[in-house]
């Protein structure tokens, strides 16, 4: 009789970092068991976590490298696929320069894989590397890095239990990070008051003592209005402002222009509710502000983040147990992918690319480290459309579904000379690729993952990948080693291939015989990260193996305990003070008018995850949300002549999508809601960008809903 083993694993879905055990029998993942000892999930799992093995063991898994010939994919061996990729990448780089290459990394992959992937891009001489964080929390990076000096969540999730007030704006954590709801309930049990601001009455809003149903895209006005009340009523924390911040006078003058009466007109929230929310937040002895995509996915995303930070700082609600800013991050390793420098403007550890200096210790090597920022996700797609980007390598992302204005993204990727996709499934994006490489899923490889709370956890391999699938870290090394074979012929060409031994930020080679693309395992890669990324210096493989609850960065030394709460003494800014930055309410890029009289806002449902390539293949999840729907208010439905369940066409200036209508008063009149897990929604969304963070305004578009029309 074969025996079962229980291998701990970090859940592959959201950034909460829940863990569970994969039950392995005869080399197969046959079940899962709950991990009651985990510090965040305590054994709990959302429906996606419960269904994780349905995606892992799915018959659609890619098992062989595929190369497209005459429009059809053919199975080939790894050698052939890797040779093809390395030669095409080298040739395109030689003829069009390093910046004709684009790299989309993955917040689903481990820290080690993201580190190697950006290393490949930069080794080839380009900073054109980005990932889906651009589409969720780029404004957090812009906003919090400026105000607090660090873009990460300030406190751990279980610290919510210490809050007396929890203000949630633009986050539907009940559906998207269900374990957060556990800790908000614990705080409520202790008497905490909960305020939820959202255009929809979501299951998160069910937890609210005060619910502010604001119009989409009016967050800055609401936040400024609350600050107005706090200053008028003398509820600000004057000591904190004086000792730990700069810029208060300008902010105070600014929010004076936002009395509740004016804010009520902009937001649709009553003056009395604005006052009640402001008092509850400011008078709490410890208050936490939770925000998410409802704040960031706007053309004013960076402003929205700044206003959130202003409110928390004005009330002294940062840097203590129960007091902090919590931008919840949506992917299992989106925090880690950012930490590892899978960003066009930052190297690993948030060193700006512009700060890079030519290698001093090795002056004889003629190197060129790219010192100007590369292109972001949406800019890369546009550059592909314009023919400036000629080759892209996509690791585990599905931009056709996840990017705004999807028809444009599809056309752009079709124009590439070379598209390489590494994934576990044949996604909509992989269908367009020249080469598709079968990747190992999370439980089939070892690696570290960083939760939304900066908690770094190790997830050991539980089972072997299916067929010939390989871990992404191996694939990246395989490609790089093949390109090394062409190194001599490439050296001295435009841009000059960066000899691996000379890249300053890597500081790797201990001897000239070291090959920087030779790693025996992810443990070796993490050891390199320990040497090159200061905030991860003490997060060693040995410590992670012995710390089931993980370690919080910054952890600058092997004997450092890690940092669960940021900014306790000083902020990470040069002078140690947080910056208060006044921001004005600016209307969304597109407002309802004429042929498109409704405001379309987008979001998620609890049983699906992002572009859905895993959850839409999980039968128990798909059965609970099988197809695209649009929510409209009963008054709008009556005016438009729609009945519950009708097939409708939703249209915007960019395209049309078919959906079933759901009639519900949880959205206000004039507002329509669609989840983005299904093809269609992002044919409608607008690709207008936040000027600083370059995030598209997924949350607001002008639309019309009408009875389904047939194409043509």
């Amino acid at each position, binding site marked *: 009789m074969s025996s079962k083993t229980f291998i701990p694993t970090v859940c592959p879905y959201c950034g909460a970092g829940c863990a569970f055990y994969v039950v392995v029998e005869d080399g197969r993942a046959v079940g899962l068991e709950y991990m009651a000892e985990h510090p965040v999930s305590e054994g709990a799992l959302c429906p996606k976590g419960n269904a994780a093995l349905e995606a892992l063991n799915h018959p659609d898994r890619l098992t062989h490298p595929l190369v497209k010939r005459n429009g059809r994919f053919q199975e080939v061996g790894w050698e052939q696929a890797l040779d093809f990729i390395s030669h095409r990448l080298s040739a395109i780089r030689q003829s069009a320069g390093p910046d004709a290459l684009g790299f989309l990394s993955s917040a689903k992959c481990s820290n080690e894989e993201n580190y190697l992937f950006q290393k490949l891009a930069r080794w080839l001489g380009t900073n054109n590397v980005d990932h889906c964080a651009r589409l969720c929390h780029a404004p957090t990076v812009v906003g919090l890095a400026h105000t607090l000096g660090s873009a990460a969540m300030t406190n751990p999730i279980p610290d919510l239990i210490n809050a007396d007030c929890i203000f949630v704006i633009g986050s539907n954590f*009940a559906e998207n990070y269900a374990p957060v709801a556990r800790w908000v309930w614990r705080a409520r049990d202790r008497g905490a008051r909960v305020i939820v601001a959202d255009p929809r009455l979501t299951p998160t809003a*069910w937890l609210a003592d005060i619910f502010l149903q604001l119009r989409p895209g009016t967050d800055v006005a609401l936040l400024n209005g609350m600050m107005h009340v706090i200053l008028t009523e003398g509820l600000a924390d004057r000591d904190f402002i004086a000792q730990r911040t700069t810029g208060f006078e300008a902010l105070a003058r600014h929010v004076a222009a936002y009395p509740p009466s004016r804010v009520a007109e902009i937001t649709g929230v009553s003056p009395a509710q604005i006052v009640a929310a402001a008092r509850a937040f400011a008078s709490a002895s410890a208050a936490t502000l939770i925000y998410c995509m409802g704040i960031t996915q706007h053309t004013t995303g960076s402003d929205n983040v700044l206003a959130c930070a202003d409110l928390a700082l004005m009330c002294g609600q940062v840097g203590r147990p129960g007091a902090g800013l919590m931008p919840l991050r949506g992917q299992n390793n989106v925090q880690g992918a950012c930490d590892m420098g899978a960003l066009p403007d930052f190297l690993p550890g948030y060193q700006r690319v512009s700060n890079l200096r030519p290698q001093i210790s090795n002056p004889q090597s003629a190197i060129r480290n790219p010192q100007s920022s590369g292109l972001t996700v949406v800019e890369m797609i546009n550059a592909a459309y314009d023919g400036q980007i000629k080759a892209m390598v996509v690791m585990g992302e599905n931009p056709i579904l996840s990017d705004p204005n999807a028809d444009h993204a599809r056309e752009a990727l079709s124009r590439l000379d070379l598209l390489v996709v590494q994934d576990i499934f044949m996604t909509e994006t992989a269908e367009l690729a020249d080469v598709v490489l079968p990747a190992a899923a999370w439980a089939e490889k070892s690696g570290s993952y960083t939760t939304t709370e900066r908690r770094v956890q190790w997830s050991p391999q539980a089972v072997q990948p299916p067929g010939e699938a390989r871990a992404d870290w191996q694939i990246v090394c395989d490609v790089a080693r093949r390109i090394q074979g062409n190194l001599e012929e490439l050296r001295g060409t435009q841009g000059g291939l960066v000899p691996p031994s000379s890249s300053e930020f890597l500081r790797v080679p201990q001897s000239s015989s070291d090959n920087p693309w030779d790693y025996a395992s992810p443990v070796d890669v993490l050891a390199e990260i320990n040497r090159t990324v200061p905030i991860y210096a003490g997060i060693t493989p040995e410590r992670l193996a012995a710390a089931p609850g993980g370690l919080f960065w910054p952890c600058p030394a092997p004997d450092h305990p890690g940092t669960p709460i940021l900014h306790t003494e000083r902020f990470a800014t040069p002078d140690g003070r947080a910056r208060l930055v006044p921001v004005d309410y600016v209307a969304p890029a597109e407002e309802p008018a004429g042929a498109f009289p409704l405001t379309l806002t987008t979001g998620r449902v609890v049983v699906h995850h992002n572009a859905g390539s895993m959850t839409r293949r999980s039968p128990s999840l798909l059965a609970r949300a099988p197809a695209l729907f649009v929510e409209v208010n009963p008054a709008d439905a009556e005016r438009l002549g729609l009945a519950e369940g009708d097939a409708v066409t939703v249209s915007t200036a960019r395209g049309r999508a078919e959906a079933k209508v759901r009639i519900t008063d949880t959205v206000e009149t004039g507002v329509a809601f669609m989840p983005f897990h299904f093809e269609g929604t992002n044919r409608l969304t607008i690709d207008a960008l936040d000027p600083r963070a370059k995030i598209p305004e997924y949350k607001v578009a002008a639309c019309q809903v009408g009875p389904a029309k047939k194409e043509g």
Partner: protein
Amino acid sequence: MARLIYAHAERCIDCTACEVACQRVHNGMSNVTVVRVEGRFAVPLLCRHCDPAPCVAACYTQALATTNGTVAFDAARCTGCGLCLVACPFGVIGWKSDGRTVHKCDLCTDRRAAGQEPVCALTCPTQALSYEEYGDFVGRVQRRAAAKMLRAEVRR
């Protein structure tokens, strides 16, 4: 007294983790159903293990029987007449996919035999479901209610 599954409906966020977990360990059929009401509330419904139980009274083959404080189901005795479905005031007995017999909550019999708790209570993110004795359940509800009244006094 036997431990049962208790529902704290106000904590339910309609995430359906309990449903997915239950069907995972019960051959694809969930014995718990979360029902959303008016977009503002949700209730996880599952067997209350009533005593006396209407389903037991309705079952003429003793496929359903009260044992050790729970309503147990013996599929071998079930004729698929469906009287129990009609009798259950909570609608928590369902047809198996073959349509020939029924299925209902067994409090994860196999797991309890192995010293493990029922999956729905373990997996519930908000602890809206708990597996405990009646006295523990009521004690917790009472302590929370009392704390709430105290806070109301303090705020006054």
